[in-house]
């Protein structure tokens, strides 16, 4: 029976429930957002005892179906003040599922001077212990010590110095199959929420646990076989992503004139080729890295990699398009090694790479460091290790905070979360998503780049308004549902182009639980999740006035297509499901 574990971080009391009532049948983002909606006061301070941090594998996580190892992390966001679901890879989710834990809820908070704790979960139960030697450490050293203490087969969820000091841009990092803490629940400052509860890490050991059995083995096996075929046979999930990783996007987004350059001043970067996926693979091969690997067992897409420095030493992995953009064209940095060092620093400090890249742009706007200076950016991030360094404290708090600190008025955020790697003026579908998703600016919440640029799942002009509100709305619904299943969002490339994909997903869910779940139920699941999220935000004080892009997108033309942002407040509201 699916278990819901609650850990009171003040009293150290652990209680266990089954998923019933309002929570019955939910997984992933469906469960995290429902618990936040039902149990967290929308107006509470995100770092107060009333907020909760919720971790939930998806409905299909722990099964043999391909690409189902993702994890949802939820709470009220310290960065945005909205509800938040941040999605991560790594080995943690499948281990939770193997222990039949569908949800883990951290509640309350200890006194400010209490010591950080490590939560250890195994088939024998839950223990809270102090591991003082990892306090203040980066996630790489901390996870090395935790593997030594708890064994090499555990999965680790850990915050770095940024989260320990409740910095608003902080992430929660997860170890990958090779033990590197390079997978992140990056967005929304959830590392600060974990830090406020004085939890440095959660370690999970699922050895000798008996995984829950699927209800209809034959039907599940047949659906899982078809599912893998769908992913492997699609050119994006079967070839494009495994060959070049997500940075394959740099060149096409640059050609499309929507690669944000120098803090969203241009849609093209003259040195795009130097930071492209093609270039990254060339360097990886020269240095004997690994060009393709998965972030969890059972991944067939394999978009991750092992990136080594000039001496052939491991530097980073999970080195994504968004990160390469945030520290690359966004800052006019074209040295791939500098960008890789910045990615490594973010993973080690426990910082969201997107938020941190746009934050460094604010420092460059203010003249704190020069545009294009990768080494200066590296030195700037290193200051975040020191909790007493005031400049480090500013930078660790993200884009909106840093802009305020330095008097910068060109601030690419929605609901205080920074825009990612597509200029909304020349990719209007994803711009609608940035403005209207309950998460604050977020591309993954409704990735209309598919239809605007990549010609997957349709063809909608990225420069005009026609069709872009509708496509964003439909994608936001579908994405919420995907985030409830434990699927990697990249399965969407294949799903959008394959007639029987939704039926196959429905068959996986039906046979897993022995219920009747249809393709129509997938859409209904997404709508229910969005209703929980939008209603939480409404009660937290968010209105349609918050569902807007910054003024400069309306006022300034973006080269080369000379386009502006031109949706009205009310036009954008049509992208939201009604509460």
């Amino acid at each position, binding site marked *: 029976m699916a278990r819901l574990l609650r850990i009171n971080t003040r009293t150290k009391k652990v209680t266990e429930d089954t998923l019933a009532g309002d929570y019955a049948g939910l997984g992933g983002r469906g469960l995290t957002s429902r618990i936040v909606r039902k149990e967290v006061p929308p107006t509470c301070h995100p770092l107060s005892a009333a907020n909760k941090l919720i971790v939930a594998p998806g409905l299909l996580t722990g099964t043999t179906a391909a690409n189902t190892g993702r994890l949802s992390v939820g709470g009220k966001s310290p960065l945005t003040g909205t509800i938040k679901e941040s999605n991560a890879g790594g080995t943690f989710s499948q281990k939770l599922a193997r222990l039949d834990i569908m949800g883990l809820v951290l509640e309350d908070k200890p006194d400010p001077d209490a010591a950080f704790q490590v939560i250890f979960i195994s088939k024998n139960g839950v223990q809270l212990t102090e591991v003082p030697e990892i306090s203040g450490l980066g996630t790489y050293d901390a996870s090395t010590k935790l593997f030594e203490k708890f064994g090499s087969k555990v999965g680790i969820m850990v915050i770095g110095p940024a989260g320990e000091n409740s910095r608003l841009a902080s992430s929660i990092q997860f170890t990958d199959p090779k033990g590197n803490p390079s997978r992140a629940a990056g967005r929304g400052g959830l590392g600060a929420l974990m830090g406020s509860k004085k939890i440095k890490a959660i370690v999970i050991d699922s050895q000798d646990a008996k995984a829950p059995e699927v209800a209809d083995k034959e039907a599940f096996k047949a659906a899982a076989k078809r599912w893998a075929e769908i992913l492997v046979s699609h050119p994006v999930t079967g070839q494009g992503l495994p060959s070049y990783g997500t940075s*394959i996007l740099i060149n096409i987004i640059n050609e*499309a*004139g929507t690669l944000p350059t120098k803090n969203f001043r241009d849609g*093209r970067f003259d040195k795009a080729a130097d930071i492209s996926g093609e270039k990254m693979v060339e360097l990886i091969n020269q240095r004997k890295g690994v060009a393709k690997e998965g972030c969890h067992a059972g991944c067939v897409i394999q978009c991750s990699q092992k990136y080594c420095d000039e001496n052939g030493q491991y530097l980073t992995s999970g080195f994504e398009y968004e990160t390469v953009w945030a520290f690359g064209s966004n800052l006019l940095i074209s040295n791939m090694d500098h960008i890789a060092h910045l990615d490594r620093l973010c993973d080690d400090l426990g910082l969201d790479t997107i938020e941190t890249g746009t934050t460094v742009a604010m420092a460059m706007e203010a003249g704190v460091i020069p545009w294009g200076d990768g080494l200066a950016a590296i030195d700037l991030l290193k200051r975040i290790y020191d909790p007493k360094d005031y400049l480090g404290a500013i930078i660790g708090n993200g884009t909106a905070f840093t802009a305020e600190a330095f008097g910068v008025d060109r601030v690419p955020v929605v609901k205080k979360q920074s825009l990612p790697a597509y200029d909304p003026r020349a990719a209007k579908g994803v711009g609608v998503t940035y403005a209207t998703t309950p998460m604050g600016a977020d591309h993954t919440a409704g990735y209309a780049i598919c239809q605007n640029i990549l010609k997957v799942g349709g063809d909608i002009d990225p420069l005009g308004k026609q069709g872009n509100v509708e496509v964003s709305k439909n994608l936001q619904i579908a994405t919420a549902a995907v985030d409830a299943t434990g699927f990697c969002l990249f399965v969407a490339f294949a799903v959008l182009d394959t007639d029987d994909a939704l039926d196959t997903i429905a068959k996986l869910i039906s046979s897993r639980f022995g219920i009747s779940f249809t393709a129509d139920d997938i859409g209904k699941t997404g709508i229910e999740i969005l209703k929980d999220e939008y209603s939480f935000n409404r009660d937290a004080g968010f209105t349609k006035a918050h569902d807007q892009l910054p003024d400069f997108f309306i006022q300034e033309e973006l080269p080369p297509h000379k386009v502006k942002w031109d949706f009205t407040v009310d036009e954008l509201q049509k992208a939201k499901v009604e509460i």
Partner: protein
Amino acid sequence: MKIQVTCFATLARYSPQGGVLEVNPGATPQDVLDLLAIPGNEVKIVFVNGQNSGRDVLLQENDRVGIFPAIGGG
């Protein structure tokens, strides 16, 4: 007339020397694919001047053509 052509990712090896191609007036993206001997079924997206284009439009002097296989990420 001269046009700029770049082929990306798995198609990079088909890019013309220096990124410039001489074509006849009235040439189309399809003519470019034929001239460079790029198998049509490996091409998913053709951009002309940064916008998605059909393969039968008329190209102009100095047009910027980008040729891509199926690509995704995010």
